[in-house]
């Protein structure tokens, strides 16, 4: 198997940066999942797709807009009406779904190469992300597990809160380097560690 190359390579600078003298505000990392798959249900077939996600990925999704379930190995969340993103550490998820989701139920689209997964974690994660996205990151309106689709100008992002102070962002690969650079810049104020 050929390893995927990270789009962040030239700007990837592990270690602590910015104003970290009094502690690191956020930890930034690229999670590099093997599979990122989009599932889209035809209207009325949402339950069938949710069931397929449970069957194939073993992730149980709650009903409701933006509902999701976080996990270390596999995670899934809704990001649009009838649409879900399922992420797996391993490759091959798209093929598995292609077998499990009939065209009468919905479609499977492999985005494993098309999206770059960036994790923002730490006590200042909400603060830093709020510099970019006009969505409410407080836990009341954005609970753990939930997913959101949003945008910072040209950079679309699907965001899942995977822990109280941890967010996984999926951005278009071609924008990933620019976004990462901006993310580091925005994190300097609170001190950040790339790991």
């Amino acid at each position, binding site marked *: *198997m*050929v*390893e*995927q*190359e*990270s*789009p962040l*390579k*030239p700007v990837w600078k592990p270690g602590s940066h*910015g*104003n970290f*003298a009094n502690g690191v505000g956020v930890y930034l990392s690229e999670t590099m999942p093997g599979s990122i798959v*989009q599932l*889209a249900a*035809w209207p009325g077939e949402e339950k069938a797709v949710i069931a397929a996600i449970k069957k194939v990925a073993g992730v149980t999704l709650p009903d409701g807009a933006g509902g999701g379930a976080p996990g270390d190995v596999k995670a899934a969340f809704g990001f649009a009406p009838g649409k879900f993103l399922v992420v797996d550490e391993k490759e091959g998820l798209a093929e598995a779904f292609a077998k499990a989701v009939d*065209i*009468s139920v*919905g*479609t499977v*689209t*492999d*985005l*494993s*190469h*098309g*999206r770059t997964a960036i994790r923002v974690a730490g006590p200042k994660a909400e603060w830093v992300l*709020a*510099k*970019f*996205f*006009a*969505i*409410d990151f*407080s836990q009341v*309106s954005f609970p753990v597990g939930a997913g959101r689709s949003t945008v910072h*100008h*040209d*950079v679309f992002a699907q965001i899942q809160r995977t822990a109280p102070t941890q967010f996984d962002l999926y951005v*278009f*690969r*071609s*924008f990933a*380097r*620019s*976004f990462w650079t*901006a993310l580091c*810049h*925005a*994190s*300097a*104020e*609170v*001190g950040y560690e790339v790991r």
Partner: protein
Amino acid sequence: MSPRRAVSGGRIDRLRTIRFTFDGHSYTGHAGDTLASALLANGVTLFGRSFKYHRPRGVLTAGVEEPNALVTVLSGAVREPNIPATMLEVYDGLIAESQNRFPSLEYDVGAINQLGGKLLGAGFYYKTFMGPVIGPLKGTRFWMFCEHFIRRAAGLGRAGTEREPSRYERMNAFCDVLVVGAGPAGLMAAKAAADKGVRVILADLDANPGGSANWSDETIDGMAAADWAAETVRELKARENVRMLPRTTVWGYYDNNTLAALERVADHKLAPAKGEPRHRQWTIRTGAVVLATGALERPLVFPGNDRPGVMLASAVERYVNQYGVLPGRKFAIFTNNDSAYRAALALKKAGGEIAAIVDLREKISPAAREIAGKVGGAHHTGHAVIDTEGGKQLTGIKVQRFDDRTGVLSDDPRNIPADCLLISGGWSPTIHLASQAGLNPVWSDELQAFLPPQATQNWVGAGGFNGGFTTAGALAEGHAAGLKAAGAPAAAIELPAVDDDGLDPKPAPVLEIKAKGKAFVDHQHDVTADDVRLAHQEGFVSVEHLKRYTTLGMATDQGKSSNVPGLAIMADALGKQIPEVGTTRFRPPFAPVSVGSLAAERYGDIRPDRLTPMHDWHLENGATMYGAGLWHRPMIYALPGETVEQAYVRETKTVREGVGLVDVSTLGKIAVQGPDAGEFLDRVYTNMFSTLAVGKARYGLMLREDGLVLDDGTTWRLGQHDFLMTTTTANAGKVMQHLEYLLDVVWPELKVQLTSVTDQWAGAAIAGPKSRDVLAACLTGTKADNETLPFMGIVRGEIDGAPVMICRLSFSGELAYEVYCGAGHGTHVWEALMKAGKPFGIVPYGLEALGTMRIEKGHVTGAEIDGRTTARDLHLDWMLSKKKPFVGSAMMDREGLVGEGRLQLVGIVPLNNRPVNGGAHIVEELYEDGPRDSIGHVTAMCYSPTLGKYIALALVKDGKSRRGTRAFVSDPLRKRFGPVEIVSHHFYDPEGNRMHG
């Protein structure tokens, strides 16, 4: 000890000395000082020069409304002009300078403008400078000649030219209640709302929240008001659900309770901390707003009211109580209301000498009379100040008996020596934000002020904002407003106790004393009472005409103090009431906002960079990059010493004779999936797609609804229900939105899913007669021979272990393939292809060579598909299916789109074999001296190594019928003219034998 600093008192930190310079002189101040308070403490009274007449000006106010004392702050080579000294906290190393003076603040040659006073009245520009009707200065030239000198004299501060080194940041915030203003009302509101558990943001423009409590010298809840405020702030800060934003000016009230606020994070320091922004721009989306923005005191209008030493009474009160500064030795007070008596009391307490209190009212409240008695000095009721004396510093005032009902002056004037005159014209509630989110403000005769309008958004007001005058009232209203904003029912509590000083809030309805001399309404713009009357005389009577004709209220203070006095004078001239003259709607921003902070959300670059998976390889291999929208694409891979033309000619030749590789990852790619995908494509493309076999690709053309060409590209059928559409790089987003709209709004019954997969795939086109050999050398799992992979066929296989999908299609006109692989494998596969191609002499090629080959083939791109061309214009009518309707089919045959005179695609061959430029025009007859009668223009040109000459594509009027005729290229912009032949756009291999081979 500074000369004017009181021995004790104030909320400054006397143990911390701050050193700074103003106009090159070193001064000291204390922590907690503003530049204005620190300079006043040092005995400085001259702060700046006015805009038009360059009159010497001091400091009028103590806050955001300051019109006069504007300074420029220098930090290294970076300049920040027009900062009110009243809002600038001093810090060690601060360097400030005065503005609009030459050579110095003391001696300013611009002051000569004062001599032209009557000539330079309102509107004088419009009446002159028209110049002669004939001759070298006719038309508008005389004005431009004069304007040259006018511009030299214009402007206040000077902007820097150095790139800004500081950071600016943007922050999104969400809350339930935003409280604007942290005075007594705001603090109470924040507390009441926070007690209900909702999310509260409390913003205040000063460094120390507290508002009037910081300088009122009252007691609240048994302690000094300032201590009560500090205690309340401490309490609020400790709460999880409260965010305090000091030094934050809420400046804009936008739709749906979206408010904009500027936090001056580091303006009070020499340099921001590491990573810290200088300014932070907050966008606050809130459920409700409490407006506790207080009120601003207004000046009175009388001759000489702009002399340094004339200050607002409340400002002096603040300088004394908050900063421990006595801005004079001998004080006089001139007022139309009771509030100035508080300032008198403060001065007396701090050791100032009160020379006189001049009250233009005959009858005043007992409380005021009592204070007047207490503070000493003469008490002239029913009197007015009619002039001031002194040069660059007040030395005395002239006072005369005054009837506050008729405005008539009588008796002899008398002189009173004083070096500081406190003036008060009553108070205007700070309703700017409310006006942005409400109807017209409401005039109160009693308070002689505009009160908040009826709300059109969810806000509630409290305190001085509502026209309230007492701290006790502010506390009560603040509490009630906080509860209401939090959605809680009204509830009475025991409010903190405040002493009632018994002063009367109602001013006399007099804002101007009509006496001889220049009486300023708008201090910064030098608009006088006579200017307002002149505007009236010439018919500029509506408030907007008044503002525009005189420039009243258009200065950096935005008329905060001049608005009501200006209206009052106009109302008087018209014999009408103030509200009949009109009210002003306030627009954002409430106070000036830095461009840097507004631009902050872009984080440095205006747009992100969009990079293909092979970007780094291109850079490492000598590519010159080229912007294509947000993308960066290789233009050429020049060898040492090569020109652009040499490089693309070499690259083109290599492809035509051997093989080359180009990065096509930027093409838009859309996954079109679902049982109705074929039907959908039939509707959106002009040609048929439902009949396309699985494993095949087809070139498609899309029109807009209006029948003009939208985009073109190939679409690949990967499975029965699975298509991969490609679009041009430039139109990827537009096509996606077009398709989504149709699917979601027009044909929701179709089961089709669209997903942007542009970033999923890396694409490399390998082209040239030897391209098949290169593939054969590295492709596994399938074959690249003509049988397995015919023209427009698709196969899947692997290259060096990475899965690939290959379609045989050609843009260059050669035998060619597009190799797609996962983006994360892009460089891996690219390098494998380069390696496999090495024995065949493969070269990477860029957009220039790509463009050359497409011109040779007569393919169209963005220069031809320019939003104004039809399929027929581009000779693509063969793609218009007659078997089915498609988007654009109904509109494409309108008379204007099919008749004569359409610009049609042709080829152009310069007959002098010299290059022509894109954008050059085509004419039938050449007029180099007066170019005219264009019949079209060149869209693209290149040197064709294949044909051995320069060639071009052009859009020419009725071009099809002109083939074989001569014309001229006319490019006066670049001074290139010459004969050309109009030919077919197919220059090279028109039958397509090479790519089918």
